[in-house]
């Protein structure tokens, strides 16, 4: 923020605007996305809804809906003010993976994605991993330690998910702020290294 002057807000000084960036928190139903966001957010996670019709062209089974209306899709998000002029938003994807149209909105321009995984229900994250891989979105896999997963299990999970060695895997507890911070820093560093590699 180059010229901060609380008196001045005349609609012309674009250079006083803060920059906002975002990180996506993806994963299957009930894997801990909202908990993860809430652990670091400075506000209680908020909920935004989108109407199904807003981008209905990307919805796979619209024919199932009467007159393509009715359905709303919810996503939770939080905010972290990192500096006067820099705000980070964390957006949790809708729990039901079929609402891909919402993902396009959430992921466009994102730094990257944290794919949260419950190791007892590995298959639930396949959709999220396919999505971010296909679109070249930088991502890390965070194993949410519901049942005390051990570090040495991590490579087994990587094999099971068929994710390449370049993708960082971390064990996390989505309820713990420090643990969530580590995951986010890991993602940002991964995104940086992808840029540096060209």
């Amino acid at each position, binding site marked *: 923020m180059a010229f901060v002057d609380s008196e001045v807000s005349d609609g012309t000084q674009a250079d006083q605007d803060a920059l906002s960036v975002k990180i996506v928190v993806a994963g299957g139903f009930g894997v801990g996305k909202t908990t993860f966001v809430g652990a670091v957010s400075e506000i209680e996670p908020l909920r*935004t*809804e989108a109407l199904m019709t807003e981008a209905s062209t990307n919805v796979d089974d619209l024919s199932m809906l009467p007159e393509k209306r009715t359905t709303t899709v919810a996503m939770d998000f939080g905010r972290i003010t990192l*500096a006067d002029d820099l705000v980070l938003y964390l957006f949790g994807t809708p729990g039901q993976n079929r609402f891909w149209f919402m993902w396009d909105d959430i992921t466009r321009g994102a730094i990257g994605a944290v794919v949260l995984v419950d190791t007892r229900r590995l298959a639930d994250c396949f959709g999220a991993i396919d999505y971010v891989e296909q679109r070249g979105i930088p991502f890390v896999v965070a194993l949410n330690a519901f049942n005390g997963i051990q570090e040495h299990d991590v490579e087994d999970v990587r094999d099971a998910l068929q994710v390449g060695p370049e993708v960082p895997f971390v064990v996390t507890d989505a309820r713990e702020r420090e643990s969530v911070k580590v995951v986010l820093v890991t993602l940002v560093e991964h995104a940086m290294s992808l840029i540096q590699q060209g």
Partner: protein
Amino acid sequence: MAAPDGRRVRPYLATRGRTRPVQDIAIEALVSTTKDGRTRGADPEPERERILRLCHSPRSVAEVAAIVSTPLGVARVLVADLETEGLVRVADPHAAFAGSTEPARNLSVLERVRDGLRRL
């Protein structure tokens, strides 16, 4: 926006003259009320008035939708119209970096995000 007969007009149906397609506004784009938006009297449309008050400190389009309790698409239209009328400014992070790397692929932005997270 009251019609001459006192009937309320739904201003978010007035879609003329926007500078860009509504769907292009990023959900994280920050909305802030301009001086015009602050000094003008209360807007007769309650949702618009709430946005104008809320965005005295900048809020993302997603926050606007959540706090004003409208679907995201409606919030985008309301914000776009307020922007067209000069009552709010929309700091679209992607537009700000138009022609260069977008912020999410800009190393110095990412460094600042990383350092900010570490300091939390």
